[in-house]
């Protein structure tokens, strides 16, 4: 079990060898935590524990993928923060502090829902990175489109960035391990991008990636020499998610 994260070790300890076997309620029970689905008004999920037993409550009105993420997140708290009292606020996908309890619980949740030892195998079945691939894998792991896209980009399926925008500008982004840090996405969507049309122009989701001048995405002089591929889908009333695919190998060279 070398090189495995705590969540992956837990899954292997339970003999989980297929994504369909990731039964979060059973995993929680194995760790001494019972799960209740009830109406929650002040929060989406909570855990109350006393010594080595706990009750995790999940808001029953959330979507199935949200419920799974919340449950995995609380199992993360139970694993890493036992004996602590934490108050979690609404946060963006990735809190800044790497060791913050929320970030630790989110990372645990991603590993529990999409363990690398299963995810990499599933991802290999899809040679191209696009939102059709993301949706296919999300269906297998019962995860959200956003969480699955982040995982695919972070694990380096293909050289790419994933960028989330609202009408106020860029909310967050993640960059694949093969993409150098000099490619930093612009704060605001360029009007030339297809993403702009989806967010502001009422255009439908892109069904496939489109070629676009890299300068529309990156504020660097050398961007003018390259093209990227972009594909955008709407993930909220005022939120779009864009895959920016780097296919020009010169963009991946280190200086």
């Amino acid at each position: 079990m070398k090189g495995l994260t705590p969540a992956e070790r837990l899954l292997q300890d339970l003999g989980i060898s297929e994504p369909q076997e990731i039964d979060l309620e059973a995993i929680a029970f194995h760790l001494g935590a019972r799960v209740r689905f009830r109406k929650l008004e002040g929060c989406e999920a909570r855990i109350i524990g006393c010594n080595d037993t706990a009750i995790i409550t999940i808001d029953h009105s959330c979507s199935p993928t949200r419920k799974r993420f919340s449950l995995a997140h609380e199992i993360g708290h139970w694993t890493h923060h036992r004996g602590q009292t934490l108050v979690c606020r609404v946060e963006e996908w990735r809190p800044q502090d790497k060791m913050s309890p929320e970030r630790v619980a989110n990372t645990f949740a991603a590993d529990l829902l999409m363990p690398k030892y299963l995810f990499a195998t599933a991802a290999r079945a899809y040679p191209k990175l696009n939102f059709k691939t993301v949706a296919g894998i999300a269906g297998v792991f019962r995860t959200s489109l956003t969480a699955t896209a982040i995982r695919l980009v972070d694990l380096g399926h293909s050289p790419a960035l994933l960028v989330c925008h609202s009408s106020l500008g860029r909310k967050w982004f993640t960059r694949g391990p093969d993409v150098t840090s000099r490619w930093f996405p612009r704060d605001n969507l360029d009007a030339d991008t297809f993403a702009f049309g989806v967010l502001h122009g009422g255009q439908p989701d892109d069904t496939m990636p489109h070629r676009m001048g890299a300068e529309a995405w990156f504020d660097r002089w050398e961007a003018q020499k390259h093209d990227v591929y972009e594909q955008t889908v709407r993930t909220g009333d005022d939120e779009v998610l864009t895959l920016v695919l780097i296919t020009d190998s010169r963009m991946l060279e280190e200086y």
Partner: protein
Amino acid sequence: MTRADKKALRALSRLANALVEDVLATSDGEILTEFTETHGDPRKNSDAMRSLFEKSVLNVRKARLRAAQAGVTADRTSATARKIVSIEDARGKLRRVLASCPPHVKFTLAARNEDELSDADVLGMLQDLEELGVVPPDDKSGGHP
């Protein structure tokens, strides 16, 4: 143990020592040749044995998962409905329980997107605390754990 038994044991021990010495004196190549003659390809055999061990380990681990799934099913059927109580009393009780948790009790609390607790949340938390045994179900004392 009779004298004859002791004699037989000593003989057995000498035989075991002789066999061990024989094995230790044999080279790896000789052992592999002997194994191949008797059982066939050693690599194939070791792979088959490894696979057997891995399968056994996996089965034991999957049994843990099945046991947990059975536990979840049993827990679902035993979950009880909440009784109606005064919300003022419930809020006071929750406040007291959270404030007076003794140091020897390892208490864990985390809530996502926590805002002000609604009535339903207060009642839910009290129900959880009752289930965990922190508060007795028919506590009249004010909920001291």
